[in-house]
């Protein structure tokens, strides 16, 4: 029924001189997302518009889904392209369009919204509105005109070719990935961190990730689960370099040397330090975590202060004000929830104190950490030197 889509974007339009860069990034991301879809597509930029045209057979649902994963797209309009510049043939084409998209059986009100930017065309916008409205009324008696509050708006744009469309399918919004620098996501196997990565990627940020693996206390399956989650996020965010850090020895050292109620907070501080070092190696400009205030002991405001204290890069916490259910809702929408709840995590509880401190005091935590001096330096270096990097998703 449709052979092409008009891509509407919102925020790119206001970016002044950078506009070209944003548009090019969007075109690249659309092409990446369509790569796995059936058929071949041409993605073209034309006077502040992006068109996706199918050049072969394609699957409508699959294509829409792929486009809905491209940040920067505000709306997707399935569009009919009409090449014949003769006004009579346009009348016919418009009536045919309405008949097919809004078939007889249900009464609807409509208006024609015509825009003629091709001044060579013999009729102007006002004339087209009148002319095409009449054609629809004559051919589709179940359609009634309502110019103030119509059920459907039939847009007809006369450019080098003529575009007819009426429906706008919402896109994910945001800005195209690659238009806003890059950041390092602390990815666990849980529900929150993939959502946090998604949220920041939505603002055009390219994402890399780090996962802390603790064999034999966490299993190969837990690691595979994190790789799978990174793949799911990469469907939106594009290629992700996932760094897998072997964290066991650092954890054991903390366990041996530090008070058990401070275990988690100290562990978190080491994770942030390692993440920041990896971020610098990758050229990332910020860290991303899935923290939300008060969700667990290590996410109270006091705890956040203690973990934040070891970082110099900005730490983005896009979920900070979210309730759990709100996070679950996004997670479900973006398709990471099912994987996140697989039960491979938590095979060992020895690193979690029975009563972890919920209001840590920075000076106390720092004093406890001192006990690691002389031991931790080597372990830290080894952890960085033995990082395994898995690349998921396509550029």
């Amino acid at each position, binding site marked *: 029924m449709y052979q092409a889509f008009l891509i509407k974007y919102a925020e790119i339009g206001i970016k002044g001189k950078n506009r070209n860069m944003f548009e090019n990034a969007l075109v690249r991301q659309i092409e990446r997302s369509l790569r796995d879809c059936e058929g071949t597509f041409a993605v073209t930029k034309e006077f502040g518009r992006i068109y996706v045209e199918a050049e072969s057979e394609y699957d409508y649902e699959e294509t829409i889904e792929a486009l809905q994963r491209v940040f920067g797209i505000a709306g997707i309009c399935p569009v009919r392209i009409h090449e014949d510049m003769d006004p009579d043939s346009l009348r016919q084409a418009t009536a045919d369009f309405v008949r097919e998209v809004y078939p007889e059986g249900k009464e609807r009100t409509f208006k024609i919204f015509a825009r003629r930017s091709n001044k060579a065309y013999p009729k102007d916008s006002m004339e087209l509105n009148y002319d095409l409205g009449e054609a629809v009324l004559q051919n589709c008696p179940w359609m009634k005109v309502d110019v103030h509050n119509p059920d459907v708006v039939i847009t007809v744009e006369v450019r080098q070719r003529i575009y007819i469309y009426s429906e706008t399918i919402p896109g994910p919004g945001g800005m195209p990935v690659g238009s806003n620098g890059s950041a390092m996501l602390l990815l666990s196997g849980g529900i929150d961190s993939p959502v946090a990565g998604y949220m920041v990627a939505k603002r055009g940020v390219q994402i890399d990730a780090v996962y802390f693996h603790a*064999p*034999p*206390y*966490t*299993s*190969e399956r837990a690691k595979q689960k994190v790789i799978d989650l990174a793949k799911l996020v990469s469907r939106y965010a594009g290629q992700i370099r996932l760094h897998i850090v072997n964290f066991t020895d650092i954890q*054991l050292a903390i*366990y*041996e040397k530090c008070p*058990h109620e401070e275990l988690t907070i100290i562990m978190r501080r080491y994770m942030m330090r390692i993440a920041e070092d990896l971020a610098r190696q990758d050229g990332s400009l910020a860290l991303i975590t899935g923290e939300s205030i008060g969700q667990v002991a290590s996410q109270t405001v006091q705890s956040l202060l203690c973990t934040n204290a070891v970082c110099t890069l900005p730490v983005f916490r896009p979920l900070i004000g979210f309730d759990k259910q709100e996070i679950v809702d996004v997670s479900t929408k973006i398709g990471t929830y099912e994987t996140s709840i697989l*039960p*491979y995590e*938590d*095979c*060992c*509880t*020895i690193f979690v104190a029975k009563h972890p401190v919920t209001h840590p005091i920075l000076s106390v935590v720092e004093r406890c950490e001192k006990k690691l001096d002389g031991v931790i330096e080597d372990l830290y270096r080894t952890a960085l030197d033995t990082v395994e990097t898995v690349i998921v998703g396509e550029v």
Partner: protein
Amino acid sequence: MEAYLDNAATTRCYEEVADIVRKTMLEDYGNPSAMHRRGVEAEQYLKDSAAAIARILKVKEKEIFFTSGGTESNNWAIFGTAAANRRRGKRIITSAVEHAAVARPMAVLEEMGFEIIRLKTTKEGVVDPEELKAALTKDTVLVSVMMVNNEIGSIEPVAEIGSYIREHYPETMFHVDAIQAFGKLRIYPKRMKIDLLSVSGHKIHGPKGVGFLYIDERAKLSPIIYGGGQQNGMRSGTDNVPGIAGLGVAAARMCASMEENAEHMYQLKERLAEGLLGLGDVTIHGPSDLRKGAPHVLNASIIGIRAEVLLHTLEDRNIYVSSGSACSSHHRNGSATMLAIGASLPERESSVRFSFSELTKEEEIDYALENLREVVPMLRRYTRH
């Protein structure tokens, strides 16, 4: 060096099994139901396999029905008996230590209104035949008791149970899940008065996705899979010729030297048990006389180390074992078997199953023990207080 000590989960195929699977996939690939020569040729594999199994069990060939594996065999025995005998009664007796492939169908029947009696066991995991005798009634349609427990290797007194049922309640069907027993213990359904017997291919060095259900001629059983009417209308679906051919070859080879193999595995089991006890603070589950349990299963709790942590530590050294009770928050309490034998929480959390086959070498046991002696003290340093 590698030590594969998870043979109760699955076994390596015999070479000759893989050979016949390949041959029936690439050369004799006909559909046994076809009228032409290719069909006849393929059908011969089914006949040979049924004959080999019938010879081992001392039953008739027509009493062997091939399935997709142990789980289907168990499901069929239970749902098929319930369906065929529902007018006679709704009471079923089973044990508290059955595998999920029996326990789950029982729970489903319970939801459908059947009365399910679950026999308790001793702390060695053995049901008391006297308790069964007391529970049996005239309207009991089915008794289902496994022969060898998959987690701790205890052996149930199926012959005694079978004789009693046949003598006093001849209309009650007796099903035995023999998935861990076949090839390790001699099983004679006629002598033991077993009506239905489940066996799986991949536990006996055969292919995965194939098994059989022995159905005594006298048994009243409905099919649970309907279709093209294969296997006498009892189990429809194009016959899995490669799987069935492989199963027959595996069963024949395994049972040809059963006693020698069992002796070999008992020696491995004793060697491992001795070594494990030497680690200190170790509980061995199942029959205290190791030879009163199955030859291939040894379950031990190395107190203070979570089973999964030990499993992953050993895995890193190419030693493969199984942790009975998943420690994920979903199964906090561990398996039904471990609960039934009254294992304590620290025992349940640290219970690891080692299982052997005739292919397991003494060096593998020694390698495992050597590594355990190294890692156990290390892991015990980091214990949740």
